[in-house]
């Protein structure tokens, strides 16, 4: 198995075999990232394709200050945000005045990640992006606001709404489990 350094060097030379090896190593993880930011598989694959082309073109500038996977993930997220930006213009994010948050915190443990992915994809566009950025990528609201060109408050409210919606979905799902067991997954 090729080391990360070997992969990088090979890709920098433009060797197609190395590029393919790098793609094969990270494409599945990155596909999940793209799916989190998109509504459909086709849309996610488009983002994946575009992002990997960027990866191969930008690899010569990769300073290796971070892990390659982290760097590729960042490119995936940025590409996804770029593609979603048009939609954000069409459906601008607004501050949500009142959010009904369930009293009980529902755990995601025991729920398959594909179900969780479905839940995320079912969120409104703005909520989906903000939730991904805040909860999973680990950005704070200030950074999200800068990234998306929105106010910090909007980011917070969008996240709160996303969380509320997800809580509700999780609650619904957990009650289903309680009733029918885990056979659904």
């Amino acid at each position, binding site marked *: 198995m090729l080391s990360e350094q070997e992969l990088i060097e090979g890709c920098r030379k433009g060797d197609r075999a190395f590029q393919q090896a790098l793609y094969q190593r990270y494409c599945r993880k990155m596909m999940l990232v793209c799916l989190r930011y998109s509504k459909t598989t086709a849309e996610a694959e488009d983002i994946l394709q575009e992002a990997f082309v960027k990866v191969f073109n930008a690899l010569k500038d990769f300073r290796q200050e971070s892990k390659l996977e982290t760097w590729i993930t960042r490119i995936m997220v940025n590409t996804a945000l770029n593609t979603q930006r048009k939609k954000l213009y069409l459906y601008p994010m607004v501050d949500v005045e009142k959010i009904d948050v369930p009293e009980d*915190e529902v755990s995601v443990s025991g729920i398959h990640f594909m179900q*969780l992915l479905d839940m995320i994809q079912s969120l409104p566009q703005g909520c989906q992006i903000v939730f991904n950025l805040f909860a999973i990528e680990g950005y704070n609201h200030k950074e999200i606001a800068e990234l998306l060109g929105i106010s910090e408050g909007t980011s917070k409210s969008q996240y709160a709404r996303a*969380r509320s919606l997800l809580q509700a979905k999780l609650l619904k799902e957990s009650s289903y489990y309680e009733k029918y067991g885990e056979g659904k997954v």
Partner: protein
Amino acid sequence: MKNMEREKFEESWKKAFDGAEVNPSDKVWTNIELDLEKAKGGDLKRRLLFYQMLAAASVVFAMAIGGIGYYYGFRTNQISGDRLALENAPSNENREQIQTEPNLPHKDGRELANSDDAPANTTNDSPAPEAESSAKKQQGRKGPTVAPSQNDGNDLVPAPLASNTADIFPPPRIDLSTNTADARNEALSSANFSLKQREVSPLYTPREIRLNLEDHKPQVDPVLAMLARLEKREMEVQDTKEGRKEAEKDGENLWTSVGFAAGSFNTMQASTSHPATSSYAPAMAAPIVDQEAKATGYSYSMGVNVGTRLSDRWVLQGGVNYLTHASEYIANNIVMDAPSNYQQQKFRAASTNELMSADAQELSSKLVYSAPYSVNNSMRYLSIPMMAGYLLVNKTFGLQLNAGVATDLFLQNTISAESDQIEKTSQPAGSDSPYRAVNLSGLIGTEISYRFGERYRVSLNPGIRYPFNTIYKSELGVQAAPLTLDVGLRFRYIFN
């Protein structure tokens, strides 16, 4: 407590996706490959576009430089013209007109400088709030920016331009209201002086424009440089091939030619000191031998030659030519043959042939005096020349120097007289002939040729035939060596 719960919630989501993977379809990689190929092609296109743009920019730059040069040249000429016009003394009628002229531009200059009506001035006085705010924004974002000018209208004309205006149009103040003639004349002379002063202050000083292009040498793309080298090499190979073809096409390695030549000959070293005749005949025979030996005449030849190239410049040519030397001389003797039964008396022109074949008694009985008549002696040879040639020019037009030797085999000579009563006689080579059977001559000549087809060349061959020996047999005691100058015309057929 709530914050901790939130963090727990987020962490649980994060963990839920840790290590999770989803397989994309195979077409993604195919599309990535296609995109990468396109990008590679696009990169090449971009480079090409860059060089195209560079070429276009170079053209524009060269045109701009040319335009500037032309403009300054035009200005210089115009100014020189103005100066010339000013140097010419103005006539009295025009003086007043000239007096008033300097004020006009000056006034215009002042108007420009003092004008408050100019729209630009209005803009400067009251900058638009939007512009101000944008300037502030720019300052905030990009650091220092150039603030709008707060100058008043007087600064509308930039300082250098204003000074130039003053240089070009010095303000001679002439008071036209002056009534006295002296004062007016004084004013006129000062105006004239001020006009002449313009010559002192040059309107234009040529500046040397230097372009520092060394620091901005375009970097040559190695791939394009390699392509250029390959193309150059290909062209060289192509040229070599074409050159070979051309050489093969132009090569004249073996050829044959037919031609004829005409010229004249003069006899060198002619002497008839020992005419081999009987003791009775010398007085009568000597003039005939002498005239024949010293006779000048015409030379004609025709023949076939073959040539081959020995090297790049050297050629060897040989052939067979039929050579005729025709000479005329005046004789006052005829040879009278004894008539046979019932035959008319026959007369033949007197020649060395007759003298050679006759013994002294016979000769004295044969030779009779006659009125002077013209005798034509036509000597025929089979000439076999062998020449080496040096090609000075070997193009469509050719120039060649030839030198060699010719073996001239004597065939026969024919003696004919202009009189109908004198019979023509011929004497072939042999023991009866006074002429040598084999003669040796040196040949020198040039060949100026023109190739008019792939296989044809026509040439003019002026040349000299220099005899190495006398044409008469040595025992005869007569010496004559004809030096021939002729010009030949030959048609050459090139085999390869």
